[in-house]
């Protein structure tokens, strides 16, 4: 085994044994890149020196967690997905007296606010509760504030229109200097909290779960476990939305889901008629 791989294993062990975070079932190539990025960020020189700080330095863990979760997103990323949610999924959700949505791996919260806008415009938001979870507390804090750099937000207005938005995107935020702050009314039915898909269990009965570009960092086994978690959380006929390049062909749990829009990775739990996903 080469030295690099030994060091990565030591890092994974230290995270698990010292701090209870299990990264052993993450897809190795990305994890390795992120660990090496941490080495550069903290000027450690080697992964072993990073491990030493992880073991001995009080307060170092959150900075490592932040580096390992690298939350990157934007509002209405992949506009056709949000258009499909608006056109195909929300009309079904409208038949429930109360709607529970789980945004799993919400990172900095851009998609949570996108979803809230979608629900608001569909007239459904007042009977919806969004559970927005992530294992990175620093990301959750950013998500709760809903403040983003203006330069990142430049494309969002266009995305919003492409996603079929019916108002003006600028109605939803106020701009100050180099930042925009999203209307805090959008947060009124959102509960942000810490949940780790690797170790935590189901906590609600959901009608829709969004988990986009999170499982791409998981090995097949962990991807399957997580899809099982989603299956157990969803009501029969509930919806699951993954990232547009995700592949669940290797997961036995995927057999519980049928396609709503295969290309956009929108699925439905249980049979409502469409062909069952089967390997």
């Amino acid at each position, binding site marked *: 085994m080469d030295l*690099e791989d030994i060091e990565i294993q030591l890092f994974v062990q230290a995270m698990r044994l010292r701090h209870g975070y299990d990264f052993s079932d993450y*897809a*190795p*190539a*990305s994890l*390795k*890149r*992120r660990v090496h990025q941490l080495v550069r960020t903290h000027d450690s020189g080697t992964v072993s020196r990073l491990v030493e700080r992880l073991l001995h330095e009080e307060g170092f863990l959150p900075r490592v967690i932040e580096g390992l979760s*690298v939350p*990157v*997103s934007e509002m209405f990323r*992949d506009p056709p997905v949000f258009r499909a949610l608006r056109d195909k999924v929300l009309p079904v959700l409208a038949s429930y007296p109360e709607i529970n949505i789980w945004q799993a791996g919400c990172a900095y919260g851009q998609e949570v606010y996108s979803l809230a806008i979608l629900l608001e415009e569909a007239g459904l938001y007042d009977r919806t509760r969004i559970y927005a979870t992530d294992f990175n507390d620093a990301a959750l804090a950013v998500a709760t504030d809903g403040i983003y750099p203006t330069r990142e937000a430049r494309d969002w207005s266009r995305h919003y229109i492409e996603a079929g938005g019916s108002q003006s995107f600028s109605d939803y935020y106020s701009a100050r200097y180099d930042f925009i702050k999203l209307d805090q009314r959008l947060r009124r039915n959102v509960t942000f909290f810490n949940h780790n898909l690797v170790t935590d269990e189901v906590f609600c009965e959901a009608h829709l779960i969004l988990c986009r*570009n999170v499982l*791409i*960092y998981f090995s*097949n086994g962990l991807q399957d476990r997580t899809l099982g978690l989603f299956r157990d959380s969803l009501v029969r006929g509930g919806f699951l939305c993954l*990232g547009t*390049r*995700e*592949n669940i*062909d*290797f997961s036995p749990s995927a057999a519980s889901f049928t396609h709503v829009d295969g290309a956009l990775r929108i699925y439905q739990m249980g049979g409502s008629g469409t062909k069952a996903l089967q390997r």
Partner: protein
Amino acid sequence: MTPCEAIVMGCSAGGLVALERVLAGLDPALRQPIVVCCHTGSPDVSLLVELLHRHSRLPVTEARERERLQPGTVHVAPSGYHLLIEASHRFAISVDPKVAYARPSIDVLFETAAAVWHERLVAVLMTGANSDGALGLKAIRDAGGYAIVQDPATAEVDVMPRAGLDIAGADACVALDAIADALNRLCLS
């Protein structure tokens, strides 16, 4: 030279024409998987895949996460995601921050490929308007792999091949029209 087990290619501005030219010249008997990272700026690469498919005698597909690399197949990195190679010879994707202002980044593909194949890898860096790929090419050469850089004089935009030569150097620096032959010679044996 050690037998080559895989080919990785990177390009950006001017890349479509360059890729068409190279793929058209590749011998259909090649058994190595070929992985291409080309910055396109478009939200999906289906058009690129289709255009390349018309010129290539080897099949061209978009790389899918978790799938195994296929022999004698050209896999194109999806738009908006980094494409990585796992030790299991399967693809992984990520939405980590851009590297060298790009996602997919050639550096990410090249660095992960270098870690998998070491000296059994051939890399090609061609026309492009930024320096993405240069550090990846260095990682490949440091691991013993073979680097072909398009002669900047024959590149539509010479920034990328120049950066590759400056930072990594090359085992061969050849004109666009000679790249396919070089690959055929290195990889058919």
